[in-house]
């Protein structure tokens, strides 16, 4: 029988992101809904960045500690370890700068970033501590210290975007713009950012991530709506790549921490924990994420297998 493929007509193309200095990493550039190869062009696979932190993590549960505790006291060693695991990009989260943590100085963070950039060839994503005001102090200094390295920095939010955008612009970096799970808020923030003269093609939308079972369906649907508005309906302020900051939300959940002896009906912790991250990540690939920030190397492997299978 004859089946004529019902195709959509698209109104936009997601900008291609190429970042890094020595080694480069790529994502975006596609012209259709996620993995709709029959009606669009997909020059790159989505990218996974390994998350590392600038201090010994305060809240990594056992399953992550097993993997990273031998390297996590030294940011550089931690990054090298990720490289040895096949990382194509590193996401450094400056958790020590948070006022509730060590409240470390922006300069200290900048030194760490510089050191990392001079020793490691991988493209770098630099994230603040998600404290709106403190990030506004830290990110400008850090963006300046990494000038010329063509990084991604973030996150710019409604409360601090002016400073963060200006510093990304001055440092020549790409920018993550985060809003609260709402299509219109995401659009509004991007309008404000571009009005400052920041190029649209260098913005990556963070629609706000969440973990399976903990707000997952909101993130999933907001991502779908943003991608549809951008690429199908041609809203240029939403026709942009998206990031899913998966590890950060997943590894807070009880499902990644409770032992089988505590909750027998949940089964084995190791499998449950890393699949919590892998399934959250794969789901967000399907809803439109182009960049994933993840923690567990086994989960990353599984997501890579999934991407290869999708691109087969």
């Amino acid at each position, binding site marked *: *029988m*004859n*089946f004529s*493929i*019902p195709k959509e007509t698209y109104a936009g193309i997601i900008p291609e992101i190429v970042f890094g200095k020595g080694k480069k990493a790529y994502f975006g550039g596609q012209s259709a809904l996620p*993995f*709709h*190869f*029959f009606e669009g062009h997909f020059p790159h696979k989505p990218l996974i960045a390994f998350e590392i932190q600038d201090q010994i993590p305060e809240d990594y549960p056992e399953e992550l500690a097993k993997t990273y505790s031998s390297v996590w006291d030294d940011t550089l060693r931690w990054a090298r370890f990720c490289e040895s695991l096949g990382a194509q990009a590193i996401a450094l989260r400056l958790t020590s700068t948070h006022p509730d943590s060590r409240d470390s100085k922006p300069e200290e963070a900048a030194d760490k970033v510089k050191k990392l950039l001079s020793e490691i060839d991988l493209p770098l994503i630099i994230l603040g501590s998600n404290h709106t005001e403190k990030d506004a102090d830290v990110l400008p200094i850090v963006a300046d210290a990494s000038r010329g390295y063509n990084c991604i920095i973030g996150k710019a939010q409604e409360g601090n975007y002016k400073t963060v955008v200006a510093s990304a612009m001055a440092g020549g970096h790409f920018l993550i713009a985060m809003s*609260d799970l709402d299509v219109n808020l995401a659009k509004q923030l991007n309008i404000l950012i571009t009005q400052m003269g920041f190029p649209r093609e260098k913005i990556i939308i963070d629609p706000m991530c969440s973990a*399976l*079972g*903990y*707000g*997952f*369906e909101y993130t*999933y*649907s907001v991502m*779908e*709506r943003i991608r*549809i508005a951008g690429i199908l309906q041609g809203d240029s302020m939403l026709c942009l790549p998206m990031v899913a900051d998966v590890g950060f939300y997943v590894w*807070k959940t*009880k*499902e990644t*921490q*409770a032992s089988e002896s505590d909750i*027998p*009906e*949940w*089964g*084995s*912790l190791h*499998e*449950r924990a*890393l*699949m*919590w991250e*892998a*399934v959250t990540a*794969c*789901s967000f690939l*399907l809803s439109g994420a182009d960049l994933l920030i993840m923690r567990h190397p*086994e989960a990353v492997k*599984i997501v890579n*297998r*999934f991407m290869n*299978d*999708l*691109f*087969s």
Partner: protein
Amino acid sequence: MALTGIEIFKLLPKTNCKKCGFPTCLAFAMKVAQGQVDIEQCPEISEEIKAKLKEASTPPIRGFFFGSSSTKIKIGEELVLFRHEKKFFNPTVLAFEIKDTDSNIDLLIDEVLNSSIERVGQTLKIDAIFLKNQSGKVDIFLQALDKILDKAPDLPLIFGTLKPDVAVAAVEKTKDIRPILSEANSENINEMAEIAKKYNIPLVVRDKGIEKVMALLETARSKGIQDLIIDTKPETAKEILINNTLIRRAALKKGMKVLGYPIITFANRDDDFYETIIASLAVLKYSSIVVLSSIPKWKNLVLFTLRQNIYSDPQVPMQVKQGIYKVGEPDGNSPLMITTNFALTYFLVKGEIENSKIPTWLAIMDCDGLSVLTAWAAGKFSASKIAEFIKESGIEERLNHRELIIPGYVAMLKAAIEDKLQGWKVIVGTKEASGIPAFLKNYMKSKALV
């Protein structure tokens, strides 16, 4: 796709003869469009137009049940490609594959029967068994089936066999539970369709790719079979995603009736991790039945949670009623905690209080089903509203103390609540619910010391 009143009106005789009981054809058409009146009430329209109207009012993707009268599950009848457009209606059935040659069938059945997990007030479980005729023999298949019927007489079943004689023998034994017959392919379609028709059971139709499967579906339809399930034999994640998307799109957007049926996906893979990913893809992307080769508890929890999330209603968060709830048997000296009425929040907090084994009063405040921080950010979980709620709840009369434990994430509310709730002391609890058992134990200890 459903017709509007005006579209229906255009097909009516427009004589306003009132035989239908309505003053005008237009009034009648409007009622038909709203589904309040059957088109049959107009004696004046031709059979041809009736058929046309019936066709237009049938759902674009057919829905039907399988299982017994008490365990029946509905699949299909989906209306959208993206859940935000309305919602996904009939949750994916998770079926566990058992082979008739398996040596430990009883244990495998127990796994299914013991698979249920409570989450956010719902009981989630493996819904069905897919019994595969690995042996190719009738007697072996029936032996395995007997074991299942013995332990779980009305569990929904899917029979995986290519052999009409096996199918007939199995279906004869299960007339009360409307099993699904899987599968009809290009070789056995005539015999299998015969059986599906005779016993009025759903039939899985299987061939490689959409075009080939369409031909088989057409054959089955021409034999009068309505309850069909599609399998395009996808091998890769790419094929699952694309075939499922195109099938749903063709049915919903192009009104292609021949593809307007639920889809089954065989997620079986070489390793459990990857099988979980493939099953997740199928749950997210339009499969109505997913067949699994193993069901360890961790995997069930992942898939149950995903299915629950994705089939929730995007317009209405799951919520619980406002009120003072008892966890255990609290008395006048028991602690009092407060949180919002978002179902997820409530069940997490309640669960952890139970874990602490300390009887506790739990005050649930109506915040339109928002989580703690969301409600706070939206101004619904504010100091004044909390104070008002506590005062009006009548809890003061049941307590010998005046201490209220608030979620750690809203520590900033402490002073303002104390200000508005005269005589009360506000205690800041832990941020995450998982910290509640340790917190409550310490809290009770410190009170005992005072």
